[in-house]
């Protein structure tokens, strides 16, 4: 096992899949010589050349639409959207096309492809370099949505995503790229899509999170452990298809549940998780299904004071846990 940063794990996963399968190509803005603005594709262009690492023009709909066509044509494109905030111009291609191709053709066609994008705030990215966009896509049948939180999962889930026969959106919290390290084994391994993980066992309150928030949830669990509150943390890892079983099992055990997400609260991904729990674990609930999420403003503001105000952090989560535990 070697300790790797989150972005190293992403890069290794990409590289090894490209070595394994020559139909895998990488395309996006600045992914070539520059190696991506976060260096996720650093070195790939040198190793694999112009045909397999393609610097595209600045046109996201083209990046996604071309990937769909290339996937039909037998390639396995891994597209990079420079920031998740800039995936919006490709919304139509993702929702109308990638997501629906298999269903509308009654399994005649499919679009095996991955769209990677760095998301999330807390890095002075302001309104347009901090967005969480998962809720727009988790709502869309036909798309898989993955949000890893550890280097191990990032590599293993990226491998599974590339090998998956359907389109996968793969969101990487940019604040974790260099700040999160973890063990990544040498050999080949995969992490299956659609499986959540209990990352901290506990008995009194379930905290459900993903991405950066999965780390903050663990920190919060540690904080309140000193106050004798036992928290179970579930890291969802794949948001769609959701691993309902792991979620419901945990909540049925603890009877209390806090859902944490960084995106705007209203209509965010956590709303669906809350709704499922309220519907399918009702008899087990000893308290309201609560959520802690980003406030409902149109983006994370730039000024550090405002950014701190926006961001969910371990202390805010700990507060939520305390209130729920005391309920």
């Amino acid at each position: 096992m070697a300790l790797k940063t989150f972005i190293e794990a992403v890069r290794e996963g990409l590289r090894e899949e490209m070595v394994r399968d020559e139909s895998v190509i990488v395309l996006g803005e600045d992914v070539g010589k520059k190696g991506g603005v976060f260096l996720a594709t650093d070195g790939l262009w040198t190793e694999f050349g112009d045909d397999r690492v393609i610097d595209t023009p600045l046109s996201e709909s083209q990046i996604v639409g071309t990937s769909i066509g290339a996937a039909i044509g037998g390639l396995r494109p891994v597209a990079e959207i420079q920031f998740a905030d800039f995936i919006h111009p490709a919304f139509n291609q993702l929702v109308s096309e990638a997501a629906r191709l298999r269903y509308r053709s009654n399994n005649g066609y499919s679009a095996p492809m991955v769209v990677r994008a760095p998301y999330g705030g807390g890095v002075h990215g302001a309104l347009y370099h901090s967005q969480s966009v998962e809720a727009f896509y988790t709502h869309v049948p036909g798309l898989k949505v993955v949000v890893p939180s550890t280097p191990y999962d990032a590599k293993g889930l990226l491998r599974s995503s590339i090998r998956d026969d359907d389109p996968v959106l793969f969101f990487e919290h940019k604040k974790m790229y260099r700040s999160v390290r973890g063990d990544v084994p040498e050999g080949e391994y995969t992490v299956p899509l659609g499986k959540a993980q209990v990352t901290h066992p506990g008995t009194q309150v379930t905290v459900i999170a993903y991405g950066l928030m999965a780390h903050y949830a663990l920190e919060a669990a540690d904080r309140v452990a000193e106050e004798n509150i036992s928290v179970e943390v579930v890291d969802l890892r794949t948001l769609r298809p959701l691993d309902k079983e792991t979620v419901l099992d945990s909540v049925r055990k603890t009877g209390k549940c806090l859902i944490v997400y960084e995106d705007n609260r209203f209509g965010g991904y956590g709303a669906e998780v809350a709704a499922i729990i309220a519907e399918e674990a009702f008899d087990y609930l000893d308290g309201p299904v609560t959520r802690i999420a980003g406030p409902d403003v149109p983006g994370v503001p730039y000024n550090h004071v405002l950014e701190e105000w926006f961001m969910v952090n371990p202390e805010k989560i700990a507060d939520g846990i305390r209130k729920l535990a005391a309920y």
Partner: protein
Amino acid sequence: MAVTHTDPATKPSKAQPKATPKKSAAGSALGADLGLSSDDLLEMYRLVALSRAVDERMWVLNRAGRIPFVISGQGHEGAQVGITWALEKGKDWIAPFYRSIATCLTFGMSPRDIMTAQYATASDPSSGGRQMPGHYGSHEHNLVSVSSPVATQLLHAVGLALAAKIRKTGQVALTVMGEGSSNQGDVHEGLNFAAIHKLPFIFVVENNGYAISVPLARQVAGSSVAHRAAGYDIPGVTVDGTDVLACYAAARDAVGRARAGDGPSLIEAKVTRLTAHSSDDQQTKYRSEEELAAEKANDPVPKFRAQLADAGILTDEAEERIKASIVADVDDATDYAESQPDPQPSTAMKWVFAEDWPSEAPPPWGLGE
């Protein structure tokens, strides 16, 4: 089924002015300069006339209350057959649009395939009855599944061309849409990418002068789509879309460039929309009677028929034979489609993904069942 099996498309049109026989520069037989044999020309004519006949049957069925919706290719068939003929069936790719009946028939789909789509039967190869008629597609025949949002398919064809280039398959990818649709942003993004990478890609615009009710002057600045090619440093031509052989020639050139690695081309085929936009549209609200009458002169079916007849290729005997085969095909397709069952609701959850995800199922009461 209470539908009469007339086939007006293959009836000799008496009003049709006699076309001058076309000879190549060398004075050889029609089509010879293009490498087309008489058999080729007869088959092309059969496809043009068959497409029209299938299409007219759709309207008959719609009026008879058998199918709820029609979207038509009438007036576009000449361009479609001429252009598609230049591609290699079973090898090249086409990303068609909702008027591409003749394109699909030329590229290998059958009248049964088209007709089961009208009836949305379980056996409809395009979508198993899931999509509206007009949304054709067949992996077997390299015809990309059509969706409704216009122009998205351009990028898919560009991606197919990219894959062909990277995988060195020698394939060409063509896409086609209306001139109104060509104003979508995806068209700009795709042409730019295809031109930068010199992809084996062909963009065909079937310009019928209207986007539903909006006339060309309000849709396309400068009124020429072909014009836009220069902005990407690729060749763009405008052809008479009612001239089957001119369309074939333009496409053959574009295919040649694509296969030679010289990059994409744009072909704007000027056609006419002989019907309303769809069975939901009333075109007399925005097109005058005179215009509609005048446009009949631009019908590619009688034009091509006269051209081949004048060249001595379409003999009376051949015409009778073709006409009979078409009537038989259209009747067969209709009867077949009428006989096919609807899809089962139990199949409706299939193919969201390659696998089923039982963990995603709603609670038992969640769909109100």
